[in-house]
């Protein structure tokens, strides 16, 4: 088969063998079944173990891993995400003087999973659990750009045209889109494998967040991207 990657083929074969066994297999059996030297099989299995596609029991035998089961579903628990991001979100709100939100894709929707009030003691209501428009908020556009998904792929053509720019600059800006008086800046949060699992951003009065030409203030962009990066590192990303 020209144009294929040999190690992926071999890994797929190993997964088929382990799945077919219906239980656990030792490395010797696996190597024999796929016709590879034991050392090669072992190094492939180590990688599959690291990404969670296989698991090892106490005797060192292999079974399918939880990572396979989570393929296609939300791979990071949103409550876990909130707990891990909380200190960074508080610090971002404190430094920027703006409200902070984290949003993630939950069953095709852009859902607020964490919200820190703007630190001015004005009356504010927690909006965790509410759905945001994917194409008219900075948070939604970050997810549309970095975590392609059915709903976000269907976003308006105009917004879609901007997504490459969001990808290349590493953040999204909205100056009075979803709510006329509100501006926002958001950046991607990556999980341990590098996949974008959430967007983190600030929102506030449009004249505080954006300048007159509709660009975000650089100081705020720096704070948001730094905070999102810090949460990514907290989640185990080493990029």
């Amino acid at each position, binding site marked *: 088969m020209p144009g294929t990657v040999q190690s992926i083929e071999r890994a797929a074969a190993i997964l088929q063998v382990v799945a077919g066994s219906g239980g656990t297999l030792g490395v010797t059996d696996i190597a024999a079944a796929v016709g590879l030297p034991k050392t090669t099989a072992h190094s492939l299995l180590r990688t599959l173990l690291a990404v969670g596609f296989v698991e090892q029991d106490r005797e060192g035998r292999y079974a399918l891993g939880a990572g396979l089961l989570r393929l296609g579903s939300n791979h990071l628990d949103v409550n876990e995400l909130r707990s891990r991001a909380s200190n960074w979100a508080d610090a971002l709100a404190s430094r920027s003087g703006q409200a902070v939100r984290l949003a993630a894709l939950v069953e095709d929707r852009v859902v607020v999973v964490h919200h820190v009030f703007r*630190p001015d003691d004005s009356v504010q209501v927690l909006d965790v659990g509410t759905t945001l428009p994917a194409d008219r908020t900075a948070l939604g556009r970050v997810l549309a750009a970095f975590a392609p998904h059915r709903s976000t792929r269907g976003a308006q053509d105009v917004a879609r045209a901007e997504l490459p720019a969001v990808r290349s600059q590493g953040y999204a800006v909205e100056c009075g889109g979803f709510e006329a008086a509100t501006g926002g800046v958001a950046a991607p949060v990556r999980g341990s494998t590098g996949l974008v699992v959430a967007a983190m951003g600030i929102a506030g009065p449009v004249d505080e967040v954006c300048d007159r030409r509709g660009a975000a203030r650089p100081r705020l962009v720096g704070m948001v991207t730094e905070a999102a990066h810090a949460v990514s590192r907290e989640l185990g990303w080493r990029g």
Partner: protein
Amino acid sequence: MLAVDQGTTSTRSIVFDRSGRMVAVRQREHRQWFPRPGWVEHDPMEVWANTQRTAAQALNDVAAAAGEVVALGIANQRETTVVWEKATGRPVTRAIVWQDTRTADLVTGLTARPDAGIVAERSGMDIAGYFAGPRLRWVLDHVPRARERAERGELLFGTMETWLVWNLTGGPDGGVHVTDVTNASRTSLMDVRTCAWDPDLLDFFGVPAALLPEIRPSVGQLGMATALSPAIPITGALGDQQAALFGQACFAPGEAKCTYGTGSFLLQNTGTELVRTRSGSISTVAYQLAGEPVHYALEGSVAVAGALVQWLRDGLGLIGTAPEVETLARTVEDNGGCYVVPAFSGLLAPHWRGEARGMVAGLTSYVTKGHLARAVLEATGWQTRDVVQAMAADSGLPLPALRVDGGMTTNNLLMQFVADVLDVPVVRPMVGETVSLGAAYAAGLAVGLWADVEALRRNWHRSAQWSPVPERAAQLSAEYPTWERAVALSIAWGAPYP
């Protein structure tokens, strides 16, 4: 401001700026010693080394020049007892930690004495192994020659802040031997009205006055930390829960905070008048500014809060991480009639029933792991209500809102439940590190970095608020007797057979 938070599992040094924002954090864990069942010890030398090391690192992180870090405040795990040699600074035994239960028999014996009433009368708290006095007595009774050496003035006693201040200010070479009034109030040896060591209480517990530190206000000069470079004046010290009350800016009578960690600790400021308790809360000193009257608080400690979620994770394996409890709980609409009373080693406030044991009540085949997860979270909310009701009965003060901190405050389902079950707003501050912040506030206030407590109040900002939903609050009030019944069952279960 440099704050040292000497906690149960680790020591943290944090630098705060004038607005109360964290600018550097360093942390180091220390070893937990479990030499026998029920015994918990820390090595005071290790704790002191960790304090020096983290403080130096945090000061280095901000490249502090002399005079830039204007004061040092200490918050500490309360009731943990250290006894050391004055001449050498060597502890005579490892520190006996607040979780340690070795004094149970001693306490039973003391409680049976005809003159035992004096303890609650003078110290504000019933005799309990929870406090430092019985631990000190244990050291005097069990460490060879400790009593005679104490009487000769060769030994010094202190809780952790005393130990650290003594070492920071020179140790054997002129170290200052002082305790702050909040920590002193947790020894059972202090008269809670006069805030002085009480000779009758010292007699009762058999403790020589010679080894006790001088009691000082929480906010005021304690000494110069010459062990740090640059040297910094130590101007604040508070027990950790009192520090959290201070860091949450609960300065007016009625204002209260609850820290949701492994256990939960609720303190309500009751002003400058001591409240005598009858309903199961404890009267304790909240804080004292130098030259001002003591402020008191009511306290309600619950042993198991987050620990119950850990049990769901580690004991039952129903969740992979603690925050996932919310995900599991949200798979169902309600508790399905299920109640969990987490009396793993008895119940603390307001019941004080050491014999009580855990209970899962109301099981039917309808109940799923989702309902169990809900019941686990609700247990923390119900227990908060138990404590708040007892405090309301004792103080008569309304609770305007509950200020919360600790790891469980990222759990929105729990926080909304607490708001509904108490029928008051629950608010979370922007700086979650309330213990360290309280220590920094205390120290900064003493050196005039902030003019007064009103300036500190202006630093406090909400990061989240959960408001009670009236219909839900009414529903939970109607359901509360069911919870009380489950608690009664867990107490009955632990009672001896007739």
